[in-house]
């Protein structure tokens, strides 16, 4: 285990903003892509 505490984990040795920023934006992109596809599929299958 590399991390002593939760706050140390979040701080990422002072690079927290960069590391979590990247993971955050990537997660957001993936969630939006899946959501857009679900909406597109539902619209097509309706009627």
């Amino acid at each position, binding site marked *: *285990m*590399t*991390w002593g505490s939760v706050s140390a*984990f979040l701080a*990422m*040795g*002072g*690079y927290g903003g*960069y*590391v979590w*920023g*990247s*993971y955050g*934006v*990537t997660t957001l*992109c*993936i969630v939006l*892509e*899946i959501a857009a*596809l679900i909406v*597109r*599929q539902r619209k*097509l*299958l309706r*009627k």
Partner: protein
Amino acid sequence: MSINWFKYSSPPSFYPLAGKLTPFFFVAAALFTVTGFYISFFVAPTDFQQGEAYRLIFIHVPAAWMSMFLYVVMAFWAGVGLAFNTRLSSMMASALAPTGALMTFIALLTGSLWGKPMWGTWWVWDARLTSELILLFLYLGFMSLQAAIDDPRRADKAGAVIALVGVVNVPIIYFSVKWWNTLHQGASVSLTRSPSMAATMLTGMLIMALAFWMYSFAVTLMRVRCIILERERNTDWVKQLMEQRP
């Protein structure tokens, strides 16, 4: 038992198959992501030069690999569609483009967030970064060209030309760190020599690459199903499919 693979090259039989496969790819992606994250954050050690900032590698490198790989697959299907006039291959090419563009965007963005603390700048016009940006423009060019042409078969052909010409860019991206002096570091993993990184770091990165791979398959299959429905909505099999739905 022999499987007739050609059976699945027609949209009516590929549509249900893709629907059955999609959940498996999503589950595989989720499992690889959980394992990959655990290794990335709790097993892999701190880098002696870059501290914890290097942990960006676990999404940056897989996204960059996928951006190039998906482009080659897209160009391959576009080329098959152009040469043999097969509908489904061209639909596959169109379905791959948005995910490829997204992977390219993620690679550029995480690279930028990595560049700032390590190089002191968000962006430099060096060979690796510039060729990856060109890849993004190729994806966007392919998508907007197809969107601008009303007749889908003509859109397929025009898109295929861009996709095939753009393939030259992929080896340029890959070898850019060798051919030019770049700020970007060289490959840490290559087929010709042993990797220059800790084993656990490498394992984490490869598992995350598998996760991105499975994810890309899942969303591409979802998208190709939408494209099939859009393009074949006037055919009997789609009408039947719609009637059977409650």
